[in-house]
């Protein structure tokens, strides 16, 4: 589905990703773990076309992404639930969801089927569909951010720290839904600092440290590796 080859990305003089090689196959859920500032968000934003590639390349479904705009990438099937949720605060829950259908919806076409799917997955959003975005709790906003990404009919879902700032019980609830989405066959790349939660839903994972991939393997291998246990699982 996605392949990054020798990818380098920089903000001016600050090099955030150095020669990253990474692949996500169709149907897989892949976890990307790493400490603060490792470059995880930078990688997801680069996949979505918000950051420029300095060198190396990215292929999506075997096609080079090149200089395509974010809007075009969404039309190709890349959806993004950004770090910090970034719900549109002055739009209602339903409007937040409808906005993300721009990629495929033509004038006069309905998106009731997609709305129904999101509301089945997150019934709480249905109850609050006419509430403004800013008035939701953190957990509800995260569910809305994921639901919003699903509205674009994605083939590849990018999730940036969905557990960020959530109480443990809520974080588990969110990951329960990520697991369900993954079971529908959707390909997912999830960035996370909560390594336990992320490795529980992922088939494989990558560990990023200061812009480099330092470890890659199946979820089980990573859970057992000394490096991950010491640095990210705290034992």
């Amino acid at each position, binding site marked *: 589905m996605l392949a990054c080859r020798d990818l380098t990305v920089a903000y001016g003089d600050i090099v955030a990703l150095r020669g990253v090689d990474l692949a996500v196959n169709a149907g897989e859920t892949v976890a990307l773990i790493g400490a603060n500032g490792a470059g995880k968000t930078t990688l997801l934003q680069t996949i979505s*076309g918000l950051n420029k590639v300095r060198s190396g390349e990215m292929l999506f479904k075997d096609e080079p992404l090149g200089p395509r705009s974010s*809007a075009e990438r969404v039309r190709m099937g890349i959806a993004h639930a*950004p770090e910090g949720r970034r719900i*549109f*605060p*002055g*739009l209602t829950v339903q409007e937040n969801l409808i906005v*993300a259908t*721009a990629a495929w919806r033509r004038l006069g076409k309905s998106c009731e089927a997609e709305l129904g799917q999101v509301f089945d997955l997150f019934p709480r959003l249905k109850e609050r569909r006419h509430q403004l975005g800013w008035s939701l709790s953190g957990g509800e906003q995260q569910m809305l951010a994921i639901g919003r990404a699903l509205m674009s009919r994605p083939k590849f879902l990018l999730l940036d720290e969905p557990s960020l700032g959530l109480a443990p019980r809520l974080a588990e609830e969110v990951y329960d839904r990520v697991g369900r989405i993954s079971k529908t066959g959707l390909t997912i790349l999830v960035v996370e600092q909560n390594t336990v939660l992320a490795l529980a839903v992922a088939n494989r994972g990558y560990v990023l440290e200061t812009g480099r991939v330092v470890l890659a393997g199946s979820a089980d291998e990573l859970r057992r590796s000394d490096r991950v246990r010491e640095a990210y699982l705290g034992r």
Partner: protein
Amino acid sequence: MADLIQLLTNGLALGSIYALTAIGFVIVYSATGVVNFAAGQFVMVGTFAGVATLVNAGWPMPVGYIGALVVMALFGALFYLIVYLPLRASPIVTVIIGTVAIGITIQNMALLTFGSWPFPVPSPFDGMMIDLGGTVISAHAIAVVIATGVLILLLWLLMHRTAIGIAMRAVAQDVKVARLMGLRVQWLLAFTWILAAVMAGIAGLMLGPMWFADVNMGDPIALKAFAATVIGGFGSLPGAIAGGFFVGLAEVLGASYVSSAYKDLIAFGVMILFLLFRPQGIFGEKIQDRG
């Protein structure tokens, strides 16, 4: 009493013009962050577009109005292409100064084209008066107030009930995420400028018969619309509407009951009081909606 009804009607009609100008100002500001100091010139161009189609070309009313609004839509698209697009990557202050400069340019181009002599502009209600048992009020003024009410309703429906309107609000609240959701931000911003120009054009067509078409009419309108947005709450659409009507009423009532020399004192005095004591304006607390 009879007098008061007349004054209120005229005040609301003038307030309608200020409200529409302020709305154009606010939709551009919230979508692009640009304080468009050429907003008053947009109204002037609207009035002269009407002069060109109705007077110079002699087209009949409905065709002339539609023609003038098509001209305004093109004007908005052109403004987006040759003023906003080249400047959008510059610091916001540069863009603002750019709008001042282009406003002066537009004014002088109008002066070269139409001269400094004021033109009368026709209205479909020319000479028509409505008799309210003793008080006669101008049919044009009533039509202006009704048309403005309808336009505000249509604008609300556009922003809340159509995909393009919801997308425009999303862009205004978070451009980066709007991109991530697949919105074509540049097209939406172009549409925003076109919408603002058409609103200003309608204001200009309605204002023409109330004043005269004068190439210098843009500045006083911009100042009043600016006062309206400060009083209503900078960036707030309901604020632009409430502020516009307030300034229009204050101007007309002030001229009649205080002195026409001081008619602007009330509106600008209130604006200064708001700046000092409630800088967020009447609807200012809603600013959190914009994140």
